[in-house]
């Protein structure tokens, strides 16, 4: 199945992400992704699983053009991101919500200022920006901690701050790389429930995780990677 700009208009559930025959080889290294093809439709929630080193992180990095494919095409929201001009990349990323394994929070400022960061790029009116930042913090249940420094928070809370920062620009697509790694089960469940809540209001969500237990519990679509190949792209129950 090919996801082209024209198919967006025709299909009822338009596809948001389309990988077709994507390979990725790092300079001097071996092939991390081999001939990967799949489509994720708008509004879907999908898990990307597989053992460490299977290529999950690399696959996710292709979507916001942090890495570019060596072969094949990655189309996001009708844009071939592998061929995007460098100047256009920031605008692609603003429409994506990215949550990283290591959170990538800034520890020299408050939780609130961390969430405000993406809004400062777009030149939003200060009052509107403040309103959105508080709304995002409220959604992850951390409004009361907005003045705290991220180091004062637990791992799960830091991950929730990262999610708030990812959704503050109201993205249509939320991508998370191992968001529950290093978290206890209760915190991990809480994180997944937040993602599920965004999925229920229509946000497309793609989560990479190696935690099979969590994946099966949520019963959503699973893309399984092994050795750089997609071995199972079945739609879940």
């Amino acid at each position: 199945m090919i996801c082209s700009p024209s198919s967006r208009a025709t299909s009822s559930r338009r596809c948001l992400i389309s990988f077709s025959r994507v390979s990725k080889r790092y300079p001097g290294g071996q092939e991390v992704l081999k001939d990967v093809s799949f489509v994720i439709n708008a509004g879907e929630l999908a898990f990307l699983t597989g053992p460490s080193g299977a290529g999950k992180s690399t696959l996710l990095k292709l979507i916001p053009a942090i890495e570019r494919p060596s072969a094949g095409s990655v189309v996001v929201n009708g844009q071939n991101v592998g061929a995007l001009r460098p100047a256009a990349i920031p605008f692609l990323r603003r429409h994506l919500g990215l949550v990283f394994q290591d959170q990538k929070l800034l520890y020299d400022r408050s939780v609130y200022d961390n969430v405000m960061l993406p809004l400062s790029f777009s030149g939003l009116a200060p009052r509107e920006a403040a309103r959105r930042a508080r709304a995002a913090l409220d959604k992850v249940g951390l409004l009361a901690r907005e003045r705290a420094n991220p180091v004062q928070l637990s791992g799960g809370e830091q991950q929730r701050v990262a999610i708030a920062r990812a959704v503050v620009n109201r993205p249509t697509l939320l991508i998370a790389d191992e968001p529950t790694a290093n978290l206890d089960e209760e915190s991990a469940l809480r994180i997944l429930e937040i993602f599920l809540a965004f999925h229920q209001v229509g946000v497309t969500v793609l989560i990479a995780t190696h935690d099979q237990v969590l994946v099966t519990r949520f019963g959503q679509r699973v893309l399984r990677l092994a050795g750089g190949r997609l071995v199972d792209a079945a739609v879940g129950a």
Partner: protein
Amino acid sequence: MRTWLRQHRQAFAAALGKLAAQKATGMVSALVIGVALALPTGGYALLDGVRALTGRMALDPQLSVFLRGDVKRADAGALAARIKADPRVAALRFVPRELALKELAAVEGLSDVVGALERNPLPDAFVLRSRDPDPQTIDALAADLRREPAVEHVQADAGWARRLAALARLARLAVLLLAALLAFGLVAVTFNTIRLQILTQRDEIAVSKLIGATDAFIRRPFFYVGLLQGLGGGLLALAIVWVGLGLLNVQVAALAATYGTNFRFAFLSRSDALAVVLFAAGLGWLGAYLSVSRYLREIQPK
């Protein structure tokens, strides 16, 4: 347009924030820039003063004519009348030896020396002004006067004024070279401070790029930091020169009084001062620009 203005206001605020966060570094950089710029700026102000002085002398071409000691006062008067009749001479003043001695005694520190003299060693003299400031006319006039038997020595002031002017031109070139050299230094200083700031904010820059900041957005505050640092340095340079000239003028005033002038070194004109500040700000911006273009590209999110 409003968004554009807001983004610049935000960048300006961010730059102030960056400077406030690194008060010491920013202040030291501004100080270095200020001191470096004060050298050529001060040199320029001094030369401007010297040029004004030599210009006044060159335009006021005086000749001093010293008579032989044995010339009678009556002969001197006759000579004065003859010289005055020369069409090349605009004005003539007779300085009798007694008056010359009295003027000398009035000079601070010399009254004792004059008092100790047994007899007046000074000759009668004329001070005359040429109608034409052209050096050749003055040299010809001086040569004619030297041929007078009663004349012992003719001193054309324009001669050393011309040499001084030539020297001032040379010094001006030296100041320009110094300014060019220090401009490079200033760019290097800004380059380095911005580089350090970029390195300390590596994380923020990487994360910002990762979540959709444009390069322009990341660059802008650094440009403002460079601009503000240059601006601060320029203002500091002006302050240093102003204080320096003030201190210098106290001494210059005392010296000038002994020459009977009220010469002072003037501060830079308003447009020159503005030019210094703008130049410094421009160089700061350039340093920031070079640094940002060099180091921001290296920070790529992984």
